[in-house]
């Protein structure tokens, strides 16, 4: 909540100090003066001092008249004096009863991007009240997010936590304070043209009306959507984490083992039952690791049971074993060669695909560059993209290609064509990568077997030439070799188990987040509280419309749109034989448009009686009657405005309505009338 307690304008020339001091109360305040006397200056000054110029337009021009910027005179007939220094100062307070003095200069010494504030601090021991000065900046990057940015500070002063909202370019930004104020402050020139805002579009925030209203009404819908976005982001992270770990598994991070049954993306099933089988490549085929280790253990046990015999006795069997080993050795050598050739072929293919994709990337970028130029406007595109010859005006279908019988693809079509090629090549690339991984694994397994066969061969040969009486060592050596392999497998199994545990953990978290996301997805985003709030707002609007004598439609037919909460009207549609919702825009008369705006803004303010909203508690109407084609009776607006709760709400109205009419209309209702004749900025010395 924010209330303006006082406003001070100063415009200082070499001879005179011009200025005005206004005190505002809570509740209704009316600034009354003739046209072109400077009422709007006072209200615009509030926008200026809060650094909110950008809620009015994208550029940073000062929204204040000449008198505050360049030259000023006392009456219409006096000569102008040059303004040497000028500033605006206001005092505001908030829901915590904190008082704050804010000053921003326009002309003169201080940088207009600087906003100075003084907060009064209750000193300890009933000592004198101290003022603490702090300077902030506006309109530089970070003004809404950084500690020393004024809007960051202002949001904190108002008790707002600004949500992050998506922009058109896909990035996020805070819902800037500038986007919210048009919902409280109706500026004279453009403010009356539309029911909501007009909200500034130059921040390029998606769906800005909806986001702003969701925040002002403090709806859960926005929070739900943000939670959903957050969930999506985290699920995305889990997905990529999963892919990384899976790649470690399949790309030989664990040697010589192949994994079957790890899905490409996390699944709920995997989180419950990780059905993975590990396989090793032995004897020319993939065997489940468990089975292979069992076989190996049996073989070792068998070897260990063989009684040791002397070399002489073992000669025949050793000779035979040697033959078998030689055969195996040759076979493995051949297999290794085959695997190597295949690997080389696939690698070649893989490289060719990569190169092709690189070329496609460059080509796509060029096409996209050409397309992006369209954003620079037709002047540029017309000048650089010739569709016909500038001299003879023949159609240039060939681009810069040499003439051929077929025409050239259009830009968009060509981009789509390149993208489809990329898709195809990418999937081919992925296939070769997978194949390469497997071949690499198989190659390594064969290589290991090959080396083992080699050493077996060697040990058998050595066994034959040992002294005849010594004990034959071939069996022992073989047993040792096999034991080593078994140990290796067990170690691999352990490492793999670790990785699989990680994967299961990821899958579990993934399943949890996904189910939460699914919960959020069902139904619309509005909570029960939201729905009550909206229907309360709707009935408040309808009530005000009745009081203001809105007559373009029966007020009971005015409803609020569900997408951006804009008032709309239910009309009978002949085609569909039912009621349809229609935007009010052009259907209502101009003066009714203004009545609708009064109703809407007052209702937004009053909604916080029963519900928790983020409304600033302040409504400013600059010339609420002037824009209408036929004069509207402002009395009912004044009367309704005088009804607001003075402890929480403040309404500032600038009007050129006659003073006696205001007094008559309001009777003894509470209000604060500030009346001027002539220019509001007057010499003070």
């Amino acid at each position, binding site marked *: 909540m924010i209330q303006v307690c006082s406003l001070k304008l100063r415009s200082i020339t070499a001879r005179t100090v011009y200025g005005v001091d206004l005190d505002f109360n809570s509740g209704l305040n009316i600034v009354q003066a003739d046209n072109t006397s400077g009422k709007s200056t006072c209200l615009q000054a509030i926008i200026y001092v809060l650094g909110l110029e950008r809620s009015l337009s994208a550029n940073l021009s000062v929204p204040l008249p000449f008198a505050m910027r360049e030259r000023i005179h006392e009456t219409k007939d006096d000569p102008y004096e040059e303004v040497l220094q000028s500033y605006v100062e206001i005092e505001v307070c908030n829901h915590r009863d904190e008082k704050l003095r804010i000053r921003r200069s326009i002309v003169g010494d201080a940088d207009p991007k600087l906003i100075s504030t003084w907060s009064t601090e209750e000193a300890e021991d009933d000592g004198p009240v101290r003022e603490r000065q702090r300077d902030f900046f506006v309109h530089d990057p970070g003004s809404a997010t950084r500690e020393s940015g004024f809007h960051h500070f202002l949001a904190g002063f108002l008790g707002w936590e600004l949500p992050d909202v998506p922009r058109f370019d896909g990035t996020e930004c805070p819902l800037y304070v500038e986007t919210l104020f048009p919902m409280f402050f109706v500026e004279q020139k453009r403010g009356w043209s539309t029911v909501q805002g007009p909200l500034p579009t130059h921040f390029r925030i998606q769906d800005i009306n909806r986001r702003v209203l969701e925040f002002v009404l403090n709806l859960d819908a926005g929070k739900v959507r943000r939670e959903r976005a957050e969930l999506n982001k985290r699920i995305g992270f889990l997905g990529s984490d999963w892919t990384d770990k899976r790649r470690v598994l399949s790309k030989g991070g664990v040697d010589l083992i192949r994994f079957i049954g790890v899905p490409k993306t996390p699944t709920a099933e995997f989180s419950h039952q990780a059905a993975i089988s590990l396989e090793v490549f032995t004897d020319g085929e993939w065997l489940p690791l468990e089975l292979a280790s069992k076989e190996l253990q049996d073989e070792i046990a068998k070897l260990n049971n063989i009684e040791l015999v002397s070399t002489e006795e073992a000669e025949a069997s050793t000779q035979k074993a040697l033959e078998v080993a030689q055969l195996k050795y040759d076979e493995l050598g051949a297999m290794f060669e085959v695997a190597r050739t295949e690997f080389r072929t696939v690698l070649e293919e893989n490289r060719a695909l990569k190169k092709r994709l690189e070329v496609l990337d460059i080509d796509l970028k*060029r*096409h996209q560059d050409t397309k992006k130029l369209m954003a620079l406007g037709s002047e540029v595109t017309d000048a650089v993209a010739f569709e016909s*010859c500038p001299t003879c005006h023949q159609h240039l279908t060939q681009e810069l290609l040499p003439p051929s019988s077929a025409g050239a693809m259009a830009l968009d079509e*060509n981009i789509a064509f390149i993208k489809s090629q990329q898709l195809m090549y990418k999937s081919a690339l992925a296939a070769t990568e997978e194949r390469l991984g497997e071949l690499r694994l198989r190659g390594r397994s064969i290589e290991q077997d090959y080396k083992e066969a080699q050493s077996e061969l060697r040990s058998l040969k050595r066994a034959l030439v040992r002294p005849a009486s010594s004990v034959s060592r071939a069996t022992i050596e073989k047993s040792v070799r096999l034991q080593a392999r078994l140990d290796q497998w067990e170690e691999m199994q352990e490492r793999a188990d670790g990785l699989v545990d990680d994967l299961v953990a990821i899958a579990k978290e993934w399943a949890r987040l996904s189910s939460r996301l699914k919960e959020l997805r069902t139904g619309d985003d509005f909570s029960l509280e939201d729905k009550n709030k909206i229907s309360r707002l709707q009935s408040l609007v309808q009530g005000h419309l009745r009081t203001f004598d809105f007559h373009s439609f029966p007020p009971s037919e005015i409803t609020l749109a569900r997408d951006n909460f804009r008032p709309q009207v239910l009309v009978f549609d002949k085609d569909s034989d039912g009621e349809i919702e229609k935007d009010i825009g052009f259907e209502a008369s101009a003066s009714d448009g203004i009545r609708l705006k009064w109703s809407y803004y007052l209702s937004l303010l009053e909604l916080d009686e029963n519900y928790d909203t983020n409304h600033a508690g302040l409504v400013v109407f600059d010339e609420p009657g002037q824009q209408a084609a036929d004069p509207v009776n402002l009395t009912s607006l004044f009367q309704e405005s005088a009804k607001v709760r003075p402890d929480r709400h403040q309404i500032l109205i600038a009007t050129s309505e006659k003073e006696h009419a205001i007094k008559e209309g309001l009777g003894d209702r509470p209000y604060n009338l500030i009346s001027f004749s002539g220019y509001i900025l007057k010499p003070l010395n």
Partner: protein
Amino acid sequence: MSYKIHTDQNFSFERKPSPVPGDLRIGWRIPLTLLMLNCSRGKKASLAKLNLLNDALRSERSREKLSKIIRGETAHIEWRMRVEPAFARNMDLLTGGQLAEWEVANGKAAICLTNKGKDIADRLENDEESFISEKAFLREYASKITEGFVTQILLANKAPS
């Protein structure tokens, strides 16, 4: 073997348009040429210089090579001057569209941006989203690629007589 088509409807074949490499798009090459001219001294350049830049800008490898020559890491003779027919068409369009015009400077023919060309080139230059790598190259090396440098490259390429 013969087929009979049973239909009383007329049908026709349409020739599918063929894809065009991005660098042969008018809408890509003209802006690129404008950028080349825009970063040249006096917004004008000889045809030889434009051909050189045109060659250099079209691939990462040739950009790399030219920058090595500029830095003196490679000899001038390493550069192979090429003349691309498509570039000639591109120049015709550029002058035909009144984005640039021929003039004679120092006894050599040169092509110079017109006011319209300058205006468009400035807007391309200020657009941060397109031609990123090309602009980066031009910004870094354009000032070093003078007409004198181009002449040196041309002379180095000349067959010894």
